[in-house]
């Protein structure tokens, strides 16, 4: 393959890969919010000590965590589906080899879900530090476990048949790979800029609404928004630390994966990822200095994140393509592409996306004081 992704691939394979990556990016937005948000909440619950001081970020994150988790799971269904179309044998084999360790993510996810609801309750905030720490760290631990399991599953899925057989015989339920820790660290640190951006938008929107409309928020001369500086610090720290983690990960990768990243398939996307990171930095620094969040810079940061996301997603996929012989799967993808239903999917995707936006609009406009019982 000597063309940039996805041009060097057979049509149906390229089609499913683009679809997979597009839906994966939606999932990652919510996933990053949950992972980084729960980490922040855990740290906040532990380190705020006895002061009981509340932070706008923590308040917001706690309030939205259950919904974001639900959205992450829902948005995760589509990439999971296309992953099975693309890499069925590899994904299933890794699932089977990790067996009960892999299946454990389901009860852990349920525990994390309920803990995130518990985090929302006022009761927990009156608890002593140890109790708060258990809930906060427990929530984060659940999501970190899920993240670890996925990374492990991915790394195992791209191994050879011989490694699979060895793993099966060993029956250890843990897959040791030198890439595991650097990869997991990269995912974790890269989650913070996304979380910061979504929280930034939420703070900006809430500030505008509380001040009687968006006009105030759009204006550059708005008063300082509580939590702006911390949000910007989280974003900048996330971008810098994840870049360093990416360099470390790059150094421990197989030479094939490194060549794939530097090669024609992924290199333009690597550049895009770096450019996206720089754009984000450029958008967060002025917001930090001014201690306020503005629509203009948030839009720029969003553009930067999207560019960075697309770049990183393709670079990541290129490492998988370097490990597998994708041409062996061409016939299967072609066969899958021939089954009916695509048109209807696109139709319902458009209709239901419209209805989802309509629901949000309804909520925005239908707000009024709740009528009393019996009115």
């Amino acid at each position, binding site marked *: 393959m000597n063309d940039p992704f996805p041009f060097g691939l057979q049509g149906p394979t390229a089609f499913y890969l683009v679809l997979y990556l597009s839906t994966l990016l939606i999932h990652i937005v919510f996933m990053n919010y949950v992972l980084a948000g729960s980490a922040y909440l855990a740290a906040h619950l532990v380190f705020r000590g006895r002061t009981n001081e509340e932070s706008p970020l923590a308040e917001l994150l706690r309030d939205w965590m259950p919904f974001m988790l639900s959205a992450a799971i*829902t948005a995760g269904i589509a990439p999971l589906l296309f992953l099975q179309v693309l890499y069925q044998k590899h994904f299933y*084999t890794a699932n089977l080899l990790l067996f009960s360790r892999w299946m454990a993510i389901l009860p852990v996810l349920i525990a994390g879900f309920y803990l995130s609801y518990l985090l929302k309750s006022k009761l927990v905030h009156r608890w002593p530090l140890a109790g708060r720490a258990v809930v906060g760290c427990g929530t984060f631990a659940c999501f970190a476990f899920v993240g670890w399991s996925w990374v492990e599953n991915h790394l195992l899925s791209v191994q050879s048949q011989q490694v699979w057989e060895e793993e099966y015989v060993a029956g250890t339920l843990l897959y040791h790979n030198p890439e595991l820790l650097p990869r997991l660290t990269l995912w974790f640190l890269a989650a913070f800029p996304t979380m910061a951006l979504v929280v930034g938008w939420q703070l900006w929107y809430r500030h505008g609404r509380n001040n009687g409309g968006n006009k105030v928020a759009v204006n550059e001369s708005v008063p300082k928004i509580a939590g702006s500086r911390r949000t910007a610090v989280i974003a900048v720290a996330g971008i810098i630390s994840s870049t360093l983690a990416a360099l470390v990960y790059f150094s421990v990768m197989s030479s094939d994966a490194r060549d794939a990243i530097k090669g024609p398939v992924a290199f333009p996307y690597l550049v895009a990822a770096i450019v996206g990171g720089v754009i984000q930095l450029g958008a967060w620094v002025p917001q930090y200095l001014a201690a306020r969040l503005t629509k203009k810079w948030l839009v720029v940061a969003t553009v930067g994140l999207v560019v960075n996301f697309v770049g990183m997603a393709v670079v990541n996929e290129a490492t998988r393509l370097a490990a597998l012989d994708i041409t062996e799967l061409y016939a299967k993808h072609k066969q899958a592409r021939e089954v009916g239903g695509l048109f209807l999917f696109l139709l319902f995707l458009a209709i239901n996306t419209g209805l989802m936006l309509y629901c949000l609009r309804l909520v925005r406009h239908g707000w009024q004081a709740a009528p009393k019982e019996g009115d």
Partner: protein
Amino acid sequence: MSEHLYYPVNDFGPLMKGLVIGGLAIAHVFLAMFAIGGGMLMCYFQWLSQDGRCKHTRRFIDDYFRVLVLISFVIGAVTGVALWFTSIQVSAPTIGMMVDQFHWIWAIEWTFFSLEITAGYCFYRYGTNLNDRTRLTLLGIYSLASWFSLFWINGILTWQLTPGAWAQNGSVWSGFFNAGFFPSVIFRTVTAMTVASLAGCVVINAMPGLTREERTDLINRAAHFLAPMLLMPLLGAWYFGTFPPDARVLVLGANVPMMMFMGLAIGASLLIGFYAILGLLRKKLYINGATATLLLVLSFAAVAGSEFVREGVRKPYTIRGVLYSNSVTPAEVAHLRQVGCVTNDPYPLQNPDDYPNDQLRLGAKVFRFHCSVCHTVKGANALTHLAGSWSTTQKRMNIAQLQRTKTFMPPFAGTPEELEALVQFISWHTADAPAKWSESNDAETLHQIRDWLDEVGTKPGIELELHVEQEGGQ
């Protein structure tokens, strides 16, 4: 013919894999029913609230929705993913084939599920501060989206038993709108309404500060959703009528557990139905929390029974006519009888030293490939219990002609040597796994096994049965 695709096979210990997936499916289906029917019920109550015909309806809706979000949105959503992952553990080729054939249907269902979650959370977060019209619209969208989730998944599930013209033309839509589609989707809609109504009665009893009259009023309104149960016998008969004849025979007595579970589903439904129609709708009785909970538990038993039957009647297939429950395709049977079912299996045994000789090691691999999806060695549905009392010759013949021994079993797909190894494996375990066990490679025995295999052929038992019936009629 493409080579058989081997996956690593896990041992679930004393648990039968079918029970694991069945239990999970039952929990998920019940929660899904609760969510689907719940949406409709709340639409109805919102309409009543706007009409001013019933007090406290708005409060009931908010309480009910909180329960729905905390239970259905959490456990319901995660068990949905769990079902996918467990399906991979139990039979990766089956779920793989379903994804290959229906990924666009699943993708469509995903768009509806996303809409359901969006509308649901909008209502959950902001519902108390919204005007009536907006509330009704949100609930309407939520209900519609959740019902359509059922609509799309229903097509895939019924296709597994009655693939219809898909088997000939390969068209997704022929498979989707199969014979079982409409009776199943209507039957499930009525079930969802029943579950939601009974859950509503539990919630009403848990609402503080209501008088008995106020509770009775709300309960009688919720009971309106039980009225469609009157249609259940007709719908059930319609759905049952779409089952292939051999599947109907399984339920009617050929398979005792299946018959018992069918009895459980019918019995529990009848109990609920009588109580609902006579007590709640006709006499307008009040039911307390304990009775409401008991009825809800009965509805769970009914759902469990019917889901067990739905899963079970597909035997010997997971996808009728296409894939046997042990992931062998009908076309592969003859080939595997020549080359061996585990000859090309790349995954070694995890515990080879546990066996005293190579024949038993081969038998363990054959068991893993052929039997382990539905049977254990000594746990649930154990081979040592099912075949332990058979003589060695009986084992050889019964396994060689497996589809004739039990028509819901797939034909044996392996060589005589593999079959003999499996027979020795069962006998060795039945004898409590002694340290010494001699191999049995008698040429005459192997020849006899080959004769039995050839005599029965590679067709499934259900087709042999038809053949025998036709011969008898001539």
